[in-house]
């Protein structure tokens, strides 16, 4: 019922406030002094509170990077945990400024929900996790299985498509939150847990015996996950979009949080000089400081650092870069040129 009410409140908000009268998002954010960032309710590696209550993860770090670019201070972010089901309404109603919540970029979401995807922070695909003792090696052996998943995701439709395309039967049990999905899977209600493969790596850590479970090799969908902003404010859209490009470009140019001070002083490469704001005035066009990218790399690091710290091979998630490697290294991460 609470969800019903909150959605109704959103409907009410649409009814009462006129969009045209709203100030630019950047000015709003600056005057309130922080960015309100929508994250998940707890997905290890992407957005989850640690034992001290601080939010950590790739999606969380991205919001901090935007704060660093806007305020020169990565701590000026407040986080709103959202279920998959409630996330878009929160953005549409203006409760949050950025949605950074492992959200798949699809045409429906981009064109009919009043949203803009700003880029891809993680190239992912949907996968299946199953108990090792079921002795299944391929997703094609899953006919008849009961599958647990979270409601309000692209996962439900991909699942239906995959089983239908391969002429297999299945039973889907969809829960409202990730934790409920994991609990039901752990209790044996379903044979299979399905979500994005990065999500599986994170959810697995929540199981009673993570080593008893295996992720099947099949990737059944394209899941480009990225940050989202609301329609209608191009300046804010630009800022969020270029924060990610700056991080990717920094990695490509070898600028890290450790050497960024030195690079800013002594770099001779004009690309690095433009990135760090010692040449050109690229921040101006977005209404933020010209050293915006320096601030991002200084406090959060480049894309690679952010990746390795949260989800990389050295973390419990143990995710290889794969598709998320730089384009120069056979991956798909490609930062648009800063010039």
């Amino acid at each position, binding site marked *: *019922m609470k*969800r*019903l009410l909150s*959605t*109704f409140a*959103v*409907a009410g908000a*649409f*009814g*009462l*406030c*006129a*969009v*045209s009268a709203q100030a630019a998002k950047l000015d709003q954010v600056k005057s309130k002094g922080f960015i309100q960032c929508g994250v998940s309710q707890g997905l290890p590696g992407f957005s989850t509170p640690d034992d001290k209550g601080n939010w950590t993860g790739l999606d969380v770090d991205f919001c901090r990077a935007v704060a660093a670019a806007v305020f020169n201070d990565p701590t000026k972010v407040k986080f709103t945990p959202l279920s*998959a*089901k409630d996330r*878009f*309404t929160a953005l*549409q109603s203006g409760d949050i400024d950025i949605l950074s919540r492992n959200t798949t970029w699809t045409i*429906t*979401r981009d*064109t*009919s*929900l*009043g949203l803009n995807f700003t880029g891809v922070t993680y190239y992912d695909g949907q996968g299946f996790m199953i108990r090792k003792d*079921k002795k299944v090696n391929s997703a094609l052996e*899953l*006919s*008849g*299985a*009961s599958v*647990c998943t979270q*409601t*309000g*995701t692209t996962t*439900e*439709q991909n*699942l*239906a*498509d995959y*089983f*239908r395309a391969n002429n297999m039967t*299945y*039973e*889907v*049990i*969809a*829960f*409202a939150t990730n934790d*409920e999905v994991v*609990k*039901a899977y752990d*209790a*044996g*209600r379903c*044979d299979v847990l399905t979500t994005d493969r990065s999500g599986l790596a994170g959810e697995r850590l929540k199981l009673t015996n993570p080593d008893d479970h295996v992720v099947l090799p099949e990737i059944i969908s394209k899941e480009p996950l990225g940050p989202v902003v*609301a*329609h*209608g404010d191009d300046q804010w859209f630009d800022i969020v979009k270029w924060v990610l490009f700056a991080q990717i470009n920094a990695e490509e140019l070898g600028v890290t949080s450790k050497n960024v001070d030195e690079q800013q002083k002594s770099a001779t490469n004009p690309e690095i000089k433009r990135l760090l704001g010692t040449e050109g005035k690229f921040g101006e066009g977005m209404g933020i400081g010209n050293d915006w990218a320096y601030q991002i790399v200084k406090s959060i690091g480049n894309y690679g650092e952010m990746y390795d710290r949260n989800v990389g091979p050295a973390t419990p998630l143990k995710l290889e870069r794969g598709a998320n490697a730089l384009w120069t290294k056979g991956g798909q991460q490609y930062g648009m040129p800063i010039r």
Partner: protein
Amino acid sequence: MSDLVLEPVQGRSKSASFINDPNVRSIGLQLIALILVVLLGWMFVENARDNLAAQKIATGFGFLDNTAGFGISQTLIPYSETSTYGRAFVVGLLNTILVAVVGIFLATIIGFLVGIGRLSKNFVVRLISTTYVEVLRNLPPLFQILFWYLAVLSAMPSPRQSISIFGEVFISNRGLIIPRPLFGEGTGLVLWAFGAALLAVILIGYWARGRQEETGRRFPMLWVGLGILVLVPLAAMIFTGFPITFERPELKGFNFAGGLRVIPEFVALTVALATYTAAFIAENVRSGIMAVSHGQTEAAHSLGLRNSQTLRLVVIPQAMRVIIPPLTNQYLNLTKNSSLAVGIGYPDLVAVFAGTSLNQTGQAIEIIAITMGVYLVLSILTSFVMNAYNKRIALVER
């Protein structure tokens, strides 16, 4: 004489302005208020539509004809991934109604038993009933639903180790699996026979009651009724060569194939809602019984009625007048609480329609409006039925 009578109320002096007429005033004011309310509503709708259009958010009800593309674990009508959102809506609605109806049925039975138990002379029965009420009505319903769900799930074996009853019925953490009846040719005749038997039993019942009231002679209704209900359809089955067969559930791979299945989400939700609501119903029943004057019981006893007869024939019928109105509230609560289903993945209206469908189409306003309308209609229907029943049993004053 009549010429001289003053008519201060009806007769309006021609010189006074019609604005001062109290009737004109009250109608006028109400009209203005109505216009304001309608205008406000219209402004609200227009503004919402403008804002949605400005943000390029899809609007309208056309989405109901689009393909849903997701699966649902319990469907009372044929449904597949290629069905429309409109059909998904009906599936969710039926699932909600199923939980509400079964839940109300169980809650009423448990509630009456516990309510009567609270007034029992037996100390143990009284203690158990009191504990039941105090524990269950003081815990949040969502918590109870989760408890039942996880308790039921962890107690049940996996499908391969399922508990088998005569190899026909299987219980596992995938639910209760029973043979599915298959209706072959000639089923119609059997059903007709059953209907006719049912009608005959009802008619005989009326006759037997009339005869007992007139002559005092009793009729063995139970045995005769059961006999007719079993023998007549059986005869029809033999005549048509047993058209109804059963499809046996068989373990295939992960799950049972064939057979009918009651999913654990349904069991957990229904049991949790029924036991929770029953605690409140028990209190209603107790207050209703206590509202019947003790003199009625004494009078019944002095007529030679036994305790059970006193309760059944004298006390409860009078208590019902007090019980019904709050009972209606509890039925409505149960129906509304069924929306907590999404917590355990039961595909009710809120989970399927205001959940998955809303998220895939993004049409929050339309979907929430429809969902709220449905709950409103369900609640009003329940109230209507209960009020009609209340009217029938209400004290007829002569």
